[in-house]
């Protein structure tokens, strides 16, 4: 019971893709019928991952593009990210690339715990994004886990959060506390020698 790890998850994605619905289903088991655009909401949930209990602090963010200036702060604080799009709109998928770029820049890492989520899978008749589009993206990013979910029907909701948790836990163990940087461990194209750390003082009197 003691020594629970606490993880910060940030949910990102375009407006109206169902970030809040996904979160609400996961945290409260509730489906939100009414549209209520988010500015910034925080939730907490304790879950059990492979026998280990951990606390998740989940930050649900604004998809409305006018609020993008807030993202940087979220990305700094987040350890794992759900990048959500809607399978009914292709542009919501393409928006994810910029988000990932920004996360990597802010985290100064090659990879961070991350899951691609294609929501609204119950709206098959309005599908505008084929599964393989998202799979391609996942490949391109180094086999980032990808799920299609339905917040309305509560399909795959727990799964995406669990997957993200496992990634964060692995990063926690592997990355010696530097935050992120686990994952695929790509070839040596990164500037490994420059872990650009803060200035150090050496007072020689």
């Amino acid at each position: 019971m003691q020594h629970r790890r606490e993880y910060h998850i940030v949910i990102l994605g375009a407006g109206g893709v169902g970030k809040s619905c996904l979160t609400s289903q996961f945290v409260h088991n509730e489906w939100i019928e009414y549209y209520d655009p988010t500015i910034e909401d925080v939730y907490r949930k304790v879950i059990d991952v492979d026998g280990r209990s951990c606390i998740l602090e989940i930050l649900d963010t604004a998809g409305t593009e006018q609020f993008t200036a807030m993202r940087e702060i979220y990305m700094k604080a987040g350890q794992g990210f759900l990048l959500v799009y809607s399978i009914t709109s292709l542009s919501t998928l393409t928006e994810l690339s910029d988000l990932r770029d920004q996360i990597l820049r802010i985290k100064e890492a090659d990879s961070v715990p991350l899951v691609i989520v294609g929501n609204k899978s119950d709206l098959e008749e309005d599908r505008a994004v084929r599964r393989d589009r998202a799979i391609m993206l996942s490949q391109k990013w180094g086999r980032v886990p990808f799920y299609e979910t339905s917040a309305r029907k509560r399909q795959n909701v727990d799964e995406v959060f669990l997957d993200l948790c496992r990634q964060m836990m692995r990063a926690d163990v592997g990355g010696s506390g530097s935050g992120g940087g686990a994952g695929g461990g790509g070839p040596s194209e990164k500037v490994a020698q420059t872990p650009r750390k803060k200035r150090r003082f050496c007072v020689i009197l």
Partner: protein
Amino acid sequence: MSVTTMLAPSARNSTSSTSSSFVPVSRQNTIGSDGAPRSVRASKRYSVTALYLSMSAQDKDMEIEDELARVQKTLRDLKSRISSQSKKNFVLEKDVRYLDSRIALLIQNRMALEEQNEVASHFDESSELQEGSFPDDRKTQQYGNLFFLLQSEPRHIAALCRLVSMAEIDSLLQTVMFTIYGNQYESREEHLLLTMFQSVLSAQFDTTPEYSSLLRANTPVSRMMTTYTRRGPGQSYLKVVLAKQINNLIELKDLNLEINPLKVYERMVKNVEEDTGTLPANMPRSVSAEEAAENPQVQAIIEPRLTMLMELANTFLSTIIDNINETPYGIRWICKQIRSLTRRKYPDAKDHIICTLIGGFFFLRFLNPAIVTPRSYMLIDNIPSEHPRRTLTLIAKMLQNLANKPSYSKEPYMAKLSPFVTANKNRISKFLNDLCEVGDFYESLEMDNYVALSKKDLELNITLNEVYATHNLLEKHAKELLQGRDTEHLTILLQELGPAPPQVPRKENRAIILPLFSRWESALDDLSAALDITQEDVYFMEAKSIFVQLLRTLPPISAAVRRPLNLQKIADVAATTKDIGTFRKGIRGLELLNQLKDLGVITETDGYQILREEVEQELVHLGSLKEKVSEESLKLDEVYKTIRDHNAYLVSQLETYKSYLHNVRSQSEGKQRGKQQKQHVLGPYKFTHQQLEKEGVIQKSNVPDNRRANIFFTITSPTPGTFVISLHYKGRNRGLLELDLKLDDLLEMQQNNHDELDLEYVQFNVPKVLALLNKRFARKKW
């Protein structure tokens, strides 16, 4: 003098801003007809106004130099500077955004050299564009005609906006909002732009099956609305309603108004632990949200905060409501469109749904982003610290809840703020509806279009690449575009132009002045026929215009200008002056009086009463106009200043990226050369304490005054982008203190507004250090 020549004002933006007396009939004054056929009378009234307006608009014969003319000129200059500056900012913002997205790859050294060069080229344009022209006249004519068509028939651009991708929209919007309709204070362009909005919005309503999903996603339409709110008028409005309160709030750095029980509990635990060193047994480190909410201590902390938050939000709301008349016309008009489109397309939509949609634009996309991130909206200078930031977010959330009225709170603790929603429900509905109460502009637009047509020298300041990019988009989406109705002209023009040229390199891009014209609509030779007015009206208006001008030119001490006015005498006096312009006016005035007398419009017996009264009225009006103009100038001065500040901010951001890029590139360059070429160390350079203090690099020093002369610093750069600063005391061999620095760390500090670089004995100022390093260690560039 024919009507046409009188109707040829020279400057392009002369319509409303230069006319001596014309108050735009549009704006709040217009009584909306909402699509109903307009009455003949109304039409005639506008026509006459159009005529009068164009007559007094510009008269090259005589330069009026009274005070009114001077303040008007100031205002006009200000407006055109704001227009062009906000365009520059838009372009800069785009560059910054682009670089923002590329820099990640650059840091990880994943960018091919070619692309690095492309990135670097974004810095080239900081200097002003050179002027130029098209290689041949035919192209100039073809493009001139194309852009005239695009400007005066907004439906083509509206259709294009719906077709382009999110990747294409930015460059299109730049051209549309800052070039084609770039004169933000000119009624015709503003109204054409709004017409385009209307058609885009209306199409969006048509294609959205249910109103619940309207205006939600990020689409070209939403980007369009954002871009619009960032033009001059939107910016100055935000400043009026938000700047003061936000600034007051961020002053209170330590005011913590967190009401999330979990967060409150956490902090409480932390405080107890810090104060006493231990935690009491009944205070576990982590609890569930429900437990935290039930904790009496937490409740006691939250209670007064709720009251305060509601008071704060109330102040914000009141200021917004009280300033309804400051809200830019265009923004209110968009609200109005949202309301009327909803009513039309979804007849069963309840009033509160309509309010929600209006709120979805006004609060969600316009006001709240500025409240939450005020720095990006130029409302404050620095990023607010943690507590005020949270407070601002909570206030925005409350306003959002109020506008959207969700039936329940996603975050349970927000429910405690529901008294705010209950208390202000009616107020907000009324406000959102009042916002929509503005007149339409269709009639005045028609009038403006008449006047524009008669202008001989309508022109557009545009860049080659803007022309080509627009042409390119038109070509790319031609198939869908030309399916629309009334697109024959566009079809012909695109055919004649042939394939769109590619973008030219930034260095070869030119600013050109494109004369606009239409081969299908010639300047109206007989405006009076087109405007549906009689010769009497024409004479009467011309006479009025001439007498007003004369009264403004004649010396105020002249007996002729004494009241009651004697028109005959005024014309006589003018006709005997030496000034050729005044003389001509005088003669013409006399002629007109006779003609009007002959036509029976005025009679000498009552001292030309009808005309005299109108002239007097006009002068009274001009008097108050002067005050209004001065007032507006003051306000816009403020706006201009803000925009310029923002420009400086953007430029400094670009500079930051520039050094960043330079640093990364020289690092990778160094690596490539690797062994063949030994890295050469730069420095050490020596700086005295006094010198650095003078330059402001040292912002604080703990070194006693009498020792300062003995302190000096050396800076070495062992590899590009890294520096070693050491502090020395005269006579000692080794430095007292050494500090390893990376350029990126400094840049990051600067970006985070972290100004101090602590060297124990002295404190450096980060931006000044950067400037010093850039100057002293500039290696050969790209």
